[in-house]
């Protein structure tokens, strides 16, 4: 295959993936095409500007807080003498396995009306939505930033120190820039999560755009206003992505050589050691221990409705199989697009990439309904089968796979590939021997994120699964629907227990790669 033909094939594959992932957008455009004066008026009545303002305020503050917590944690764990840092390294990522609405429920149980630790309605509205979403999303930042720090050549920081920079200066001028591309990619994931979240804002009664969209869908007499609000969400997404492009910066951090494979210098925390440990403990308690304790409390309530072990096993099997399938397909789909973006940057590739991000910012119900719309009109035999369900997950979570792949590709020095080509290797062989091994950690990270998101996914699962294909997430929903928290707890705990080892494996994998990268 010649270079030119390979490039064309790559562009075509990327375009195809982007087109499929943008189906929800097409659906929104079709649905809003019939917008008449009435629909626009409904939009105005919704105090749309206020909704947009509230949504942006939430997205901005959640992203800022998640960045603050995630970056700090990553630095503490990788570069300081924080007590029990190996344990913290794993625990800090664990909240990723807890559905955000469970975090919200636990917060309400703890400090809401009749709560265990306090009372009152103050938690409802912005404070609760902000807290729950920050706790649920900071692990994205932590994971990607910790990985970036581990990969970074310690020589950079050492050189800066040797040249007379203070520790604070090194942190600001070297450490932060090293994390910047990863932090920026993670910030997008956090922002999109917050934009698309419905569970938390509805439990916390915070009037965000998604809540307005859901209320519109619940009436159904006219789906146009919901579609218009959805498009508005897409516009906000484009804004977020434009900001990210700036945040990422023009710089490129690649390791030209393997460098020395040795641990980085550890910054002693001194008298800050205890306060830092306490702060980390508080975050982990609120983000992980509290939700799990709430669930265990529910599970211990006497109830005749607790599911049997056989049922749990069947649901768990379904959850794991479908999530693994979604993770694999998402990574395969992300590869051509990520390569295109990283190797042939330009208007086209950027546009294609952004189209896929838009779907991720839409609430699950919009993505699900758009696929209902297209599937029943084009691929009827596939409707409500597992392949279509996997496809729905890929459409929803492709950006997570993409961020992993792109992050990794950004670090593969093109010079290495050029050297391989110069030594006579064809494009395929270069990819197989040089690019792919370097990509693997990023792909693995992306696949893991998709896997975890799919385990928790609900709206698309409910509408697009084959009848009778029960998963852990659908059973949690089914039990909470009849306010039977005792019956909801076992599948929710199983979901967490099954996802936790995956996060652990990812952590270990990322750590090992740091050392192994020296061999490449």
């Amino acid at each position, binding site marked *: 295959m010649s270079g030119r033909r390979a490039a064309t094939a790559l562009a075509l594959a990327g375009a195809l993936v982007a087109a499929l992932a943008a189906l929800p957008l097409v659906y929104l455009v079709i649905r809003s095409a019939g917008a008449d004066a009435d629909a626009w008026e409904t939009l105005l009545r919704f105090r749309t500007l206020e909704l947009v303002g509230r949504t942006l305020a939430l997205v901005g503050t959640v992203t800022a807080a998640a960045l603050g917590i995630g970056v700090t944690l990553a630095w503490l764990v990788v570069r300081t003498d924080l007590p029990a840092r190996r344990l913290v390294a794993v625990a800090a990522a664990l909240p990723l396995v807890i559905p955000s609405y469970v975090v919200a429920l636990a917060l309400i149980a703890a400090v809401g009306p009749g709560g265990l630790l306090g009372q009152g309605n103050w938690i409802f509205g912005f404070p609760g939505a902000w807290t729950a979403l920050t706790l649920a999303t900071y692990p994205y930042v932590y994971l990607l930033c910790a990985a970036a720090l581990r990969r970074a050549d310690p020589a950079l920081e050492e050189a800066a120190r040797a040249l007379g920079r203070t520790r604070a200066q090194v942190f600001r001028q070297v450490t932060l820039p090293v994390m910047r591309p990863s932090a920026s990619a993670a910030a997008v994931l956090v922002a999109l999560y917050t934009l698309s979240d419905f569970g938390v804002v509805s439990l916390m009664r915070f009037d965000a755009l998604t809540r307005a969209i859901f209320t519109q869908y619940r009436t*159904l007499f006219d789906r146009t206003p919901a579609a218009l609000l959805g498009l508005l969400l897409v516009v906000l997404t484009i804004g977020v992505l434009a900001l990210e492009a700036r945040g990422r910066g023009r710089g490129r951090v690649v390791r030209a050589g393997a460098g020395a494979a040795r641990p980085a210098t550890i910054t002693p925390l001194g008298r800050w050691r205890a306060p830092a440990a306490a702060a980390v403990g508080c975050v982990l308690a609120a983000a992980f221990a509290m939700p799990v304790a709430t669930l265990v409390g529910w599970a211990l309530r006497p109830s005749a409705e607790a599911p049997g072990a056989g049922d749990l096993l069947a649901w768990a099997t379904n959850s794991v199989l*479908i999530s693994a399938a979604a993770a694999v397909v998402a990574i395969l789909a992300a590869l051509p697009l990520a390569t295109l973006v990283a190797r042939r940057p330009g208007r086209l590739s950027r546009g294609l990439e952004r189209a896929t991000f838009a779907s991720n910012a839409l609430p699950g119900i919009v993505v699900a309904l758009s696929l209902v719309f297209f599937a029943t009109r084009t691929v009827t035999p596939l409707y409500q089968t597992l392949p279509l369900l996997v496809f729905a997950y890929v459409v929803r979570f492709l950006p997570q796979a993409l961020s992993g792949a792109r992050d990794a590709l950004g670090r593969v020095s093109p010079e290495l590939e050029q050297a391989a080509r110069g030594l006579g290797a064809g494009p395929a062989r270069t990819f197989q021997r040089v690019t792919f091994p370097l990509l693997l950690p990023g792909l693995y990270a992306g696949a893991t994120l998709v896997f975890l998101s799919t385990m928790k996914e609900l709206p698309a699962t409910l509408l697009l699964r084959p009848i009778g294909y029960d998963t852990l997430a659908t059973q949690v929903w089914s039990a909470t629907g009849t306010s039977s928290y005792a019956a909801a707890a076992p599948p929710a705990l199983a979901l967490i227990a099954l996802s936790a080892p995956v996060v652990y494996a990812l952590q270990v994998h990322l750590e090992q790669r740091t050392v192994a990268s020296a061999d490449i």
Partner: protein
Amino acid sequence: MTRLLALLAVLLVVVLTGCGTDDKSSPSSGAASSSASDKGDGTLTIYSGRSEDLVGPLLDTFEKQSGIEVKVRYGESAELAATIAEEGENSPAEVFFSQDAGALGAVAEAGLLAQVNSGQVDRRWVGADERWVGTSGRARVVAYSTERVKKTDLPDTIFDFTQPEWKGRIALAPTNASFQAFVSAMRLSAGDKRTQAWLEGIKANDPTLLDGNSDVVKAINSGEVDVGLVNHYYVYELEAETPGLKVANHFLKSGDPGSLVNVAGVGALKTGDAGESARLVTFLLSDEAQAYFAEKTFEYPLTGLTQPPDRLPPLTDLQGPAIELGELGEALPETTRLIDEVGLGA
């Protein structure tokens, strides 16, 4: 590395085809097979907004009695209604079993429902042109503490709960669909102005805002509040769990929005098999099914042939506000906006 790729590919194939084979071997999980091709072949596909816990056993009974194989997709009523609307002519659904009348009204409005035989059910609980029929009813009530409130002190209209004597004594669940339906009913019967004034009056009385109706009844029992705005059956559900519950229901006067009776109901899709759908509708209105609702879910039977649960006033005494139940869905966005604006939503 190549091995890893191969492994992933194999895993993928196993998952997709393996589960596909499952579909064929176990009839209850068939998916593609529930498309238009098998209408009238002895299977009936139901989209149910009522939960599996609640109606699963009843649908099993129907399956046994009729010999018709039943496939049920469970979900939220409104989302299932939206799905049916998007599916249009290609909908695999044959029957829509909804938690509330609003979602049925919406699907009927979209022209997707065929006529059903509403039998003995009062016209109040039948959709326009018999496009859907109510299967069981629930009344809005004021639950009150039998320890701290005298029944004779309770007003007979919901509008009087804005009086200062109720300050700090009321609980409600403002994000609950049943509360929102009740406020919609107030708007449709008493107008937006009066509704807004009522919401503001309640807000001024410093109500305790809770997540769900059962939490409201629990808060009354624990002494946190004295009265709560809920559906009638929550008191009975909690009584079954907590013997000696000190909470009772107070029914408001006829015509008052506070005495709204909303229904769960069923509609037959035009795309489905008319004969099989009709059999299910008939079954849900049979004495057996109506008694099931009265005994298991403490709801009102609607055919007039089955006794309501003990202690409930007869349905004929509950003349709620003069509104069309099917219109409640359409009123919803404005209702939630009003609730939020007053400050009860957030």
